[in-house]
């Protein structure tokens, strides 16, 4: 639990940006908060759910989350929603029109860009969305600023009748730093007042409001030019003046303590006047922003000269000191930093793996056996790891819920070579409910020959185990109606005999079911039934071990992909035809094993048996 929930006002706490934002949202008197989980933004709502006197929900996707917050704002409640960068793409349809209509209660949208791509399918600069929607953009550099700016964002939203975009990056969300917290202010909900000319966006009504949106930008620019969030920190080394925002400011401040720095927090509309004032006193201006050259291009368009930015600095990834210093030193002819004295040692890669007993392994084990007969369209979640070793059983991953639409396109675009292949879409439960249902509906409607596998592990796994409509619990842990996937897909039009429910631990059953369904030309759905091993629903069983004398070294159990199974010894055997192959004799780490039996199912010679109680005790 975030320490900030129970802390007294005016105490100093070590808080992540996400926890600091949650505290700020609550202190601002927000009454409505919504999100769909997404790294690095997930913990904001998890934290907010712990505060009193505020409604917080996991929404099914980011568009719905934003719509819930819009409804709250229209009703006069200060409202907040959070999402990761790609979530704002999903929410953008609602965003692009609410920005015309404006707000009643302050409306703040926090969007977290995964700069450096620790857990995302792309790296995008969400400030583009803010500009596209004519929104003011605030960019905190650390937890304290995130806390302060989100509070100010509600004020700004109400003062200028606009949603406000709080742009975060991973280095704000997940860095813990010292924050001094304050007290909650009360903002009572005023209630919804019907005003169709404002809220019913027919062309006539929308046209009437667009001039106000344009006028709003003039007012926002004046505010940005005078905002205390934009400050000049003077310095005596006038060879370079920096213009910077977000956590990049911290890196600049650390590396160039003597340089003048224009530190921008209110970054759109860009306060060109402030930059002009600074530019006259320095030889070069360098804009340091993550990731796209947005401020830089605006400043160039405003006619400022001697501006550097992405000509020196990379357009992708973080602008950390080890990136920044060599680039800047090159500009002013300083020697490059010496770097580390110790050589880089690269032992072996250690990519993320599925957990021991992860039910996804049962499906990927079977798909890898059928690899030559199927095209496999994947989706976003833990099961994206199926693309990796040892399964290599994914052909595509693009965006949330895309597996089925892409599978349908593949089905309709078969060549002579692929005409007999099975087309399989693989998607998780949370992702299916997020954006997947429409894809399946499209397959049914257009008579697609696609087998959809819903990996229902009863959680939102990759983001750390959040609830959704398929888990039977809400964000706050209360009981919630639990969606029945079999009934849902039947309602979407899949024939009842083509809806198969399987235990993913029973490898032969999974294999046979997939084989049967890809042989059928109608839309089919296979739903797996085992929960995530990290969830409260997982039923841990006693571990297994390998009998050395019985193990033939075939290595089949390794192909399950369980991290608890390791190769103990190898032997090279020569075949009669002169070729050779390697036998792999395995062992099971009984401390990691949770007794799922998948390796038992994979073992021909029956060398895997329950570990003796004494063996457990020795561990």
């Amino acid at each position, binding site marked *: 639990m975030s320490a900030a929930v129970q802390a007294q006002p005016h105490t*100093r706490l*070590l808080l992540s940006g996400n926890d600091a934002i949650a505290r700020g949202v609550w202190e601002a008197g927000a009454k409505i908060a919504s999100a769909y989980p997404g*790294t*690095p933004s997930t913990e904001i709502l998890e934290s907010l759910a712990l505060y009193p006197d505020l409604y917080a929900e996991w929404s099914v996707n980011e568009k719905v989350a934003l719509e819930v917050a819009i409804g709250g704002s229209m009703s006069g409640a200060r409202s907040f929603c959070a999402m990761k960068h790609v979530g704002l793409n999903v929410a953008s349809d609602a965003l692009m029109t609410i920005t015309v209509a404006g707000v009643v209660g302050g409306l703040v949208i926090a969007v977290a860009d*995964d700069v*450096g791509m*620790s*857990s*995302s399918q792309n790296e995008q600069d969400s400030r583009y969305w803010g500009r596209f929607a004519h929104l003011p953009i605030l960019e905190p550099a*650390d937890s304290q600023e995130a806390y302060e700016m989100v509070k100010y964002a509600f004020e700004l939203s109400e003062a200028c009748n606009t949603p406000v975009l709080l742009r975060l990056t*991973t*280095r704000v969300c*997940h*860095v*813990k*730093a*010292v924050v001094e917290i304050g007290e909650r202010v009360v903002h009572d909900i005023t209630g919804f007042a019907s005003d169709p000319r404002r809220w019913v966006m027919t062309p006539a009504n929308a046209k009437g409001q667009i001039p106000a949106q344009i006028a709003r930008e003039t007012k926002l620019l004046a505010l940005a030019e005078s905002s205390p969030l934009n400050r000049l920190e003077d310095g005596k080394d006038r060879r370079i003046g920096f213009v910077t925002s977000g*956590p990049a400011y*911290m*890196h600049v*401040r*650390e*590396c160039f303590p003597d340089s003048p720095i224009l530190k921008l927090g209110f970054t759109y509309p860009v306060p060109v006047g402030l930059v002009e004032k600074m530019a006259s006193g320095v030889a070069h201006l360098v804009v340091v922003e993550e990731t796209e050259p947005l401020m830089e291009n605006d400043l160039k368009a405003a006619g400022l000269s001697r501006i550097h930015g992405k000509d020196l600095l990379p357009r992708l990834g*973080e602008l*950390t*000191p*080890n990136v920044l210093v060599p680039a800047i030193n090159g500009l002013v002819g300083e020697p490059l930093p*010496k*770097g*580390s*004295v*110790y*050589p*880089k*040692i*690269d*032992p*072996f*890669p*250690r*990519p*993320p*793996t*599925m*957990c021991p007993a992860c039910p996804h392994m049962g499906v990927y084990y079977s798909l890898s056996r059928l690899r030559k007969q199927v095209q496999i369209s994947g989706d976003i979640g*833990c099961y994206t790891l199926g693309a990796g*070793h*040892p399964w290599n059983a994914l052909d595509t991953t693009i965006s949330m819920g895309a597996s089925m639409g892409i599978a349908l396109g593949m089905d309709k675009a078969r060549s002579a070579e692929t005409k007999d292949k099975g087309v399989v879409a693989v998607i998780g439960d949370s992702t299916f409910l997020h954006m997947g249902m429409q894809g399946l509906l499209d397959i049914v409607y257009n008579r697609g020959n696609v087998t959809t596998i819903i990996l229902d592990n009863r959680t939102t796994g*990759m983001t750390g185990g959040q609830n959704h409509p398929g888990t039977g619990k809400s964000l706050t842990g209360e009981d919630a109606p639990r969606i029945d996937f079999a009934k849902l897909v039947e309602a979407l039009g899949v024939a009842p005999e083509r809806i198969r429910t399987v235990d993913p631990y029973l490898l032969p059953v999974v294999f046979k079911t997939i084989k049967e369904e890809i042989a059928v030309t109608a839309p089919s759905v296979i739903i797996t039934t085992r929960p995530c091993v*990290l969830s409260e629903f997982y039923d841990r069983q006693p571990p297994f071990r390998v009998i050395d004398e019985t193990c033939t070294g075939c*290595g089949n159990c*390794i192909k399950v992909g*369980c*991290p608890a*199974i*390791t*190769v103990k010894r190898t032997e090279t055997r020569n075949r009669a035809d002169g070729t050779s192959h*390697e036998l*792999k004799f395995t062992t099971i780490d009984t*401390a990691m094993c949770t007794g799922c039996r998948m390796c038992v199912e994979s073992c021909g010679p029956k060398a895997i048996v329950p570990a003796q109680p004494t063996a457990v005790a020795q561990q």
Partner: protein
Amino acid sequence: MNDVITNILICGIGGQGVMTAAEILAQAAMAQGFDCKKSEIAGMAQRGGVVTSHVRFGRKVWSPVITPGTADLLVAFEVAEGSRWADHLRPGGTAMVNTIRLAPPIVSSGLYKYPADPVAQMRAAGVPVIEVDAGTIARDLGNLRLVNTIMLGAIADHLPFPATELEEQIVGRFRERKPAMVEVNQRAFEAGRQASQRGNADVTARAVNC
């Protein structure tokens, strides 16, 4: 308080408790009146991948990231991970390494080889390494989860504040929630300290022999 920043890089594998250890260390530094930042890339950390956490503290900390070549202390929860991050140490920095070897599936299935002796590799590169067999110590104390406390004990005499302050930060957490765990954590902390002192003597002896 002077302007010196202490940089501690903690590395290991998802699920080992790297982030918890970093959190405890950061809280201890903050309790000493330091400004402090703790940063990690944790996106897929639960899934057995590489995890690092950066802890920086001093009078005023700006960047939350430790620049390669500037870490005062590297705390490795796994020996090959220690070798992977050793180049982040500053000259004269120390690598405190748990000697446990944890092979990922990519190694156990034969695609890659686990190095025979990562500590020897680090030493050959000139890195001062202190070995701590935290797995064995934890097993002797009866609970594998104590590795975390043992490793914090191991670095406790390498910090710019008294070891007891770090110990109090650990014990304080258990005192509220699991009082039964206080004593065994105190023993684990002390065992980590002693193991590190023995390891340090080895390093010093080796330096003399050279």
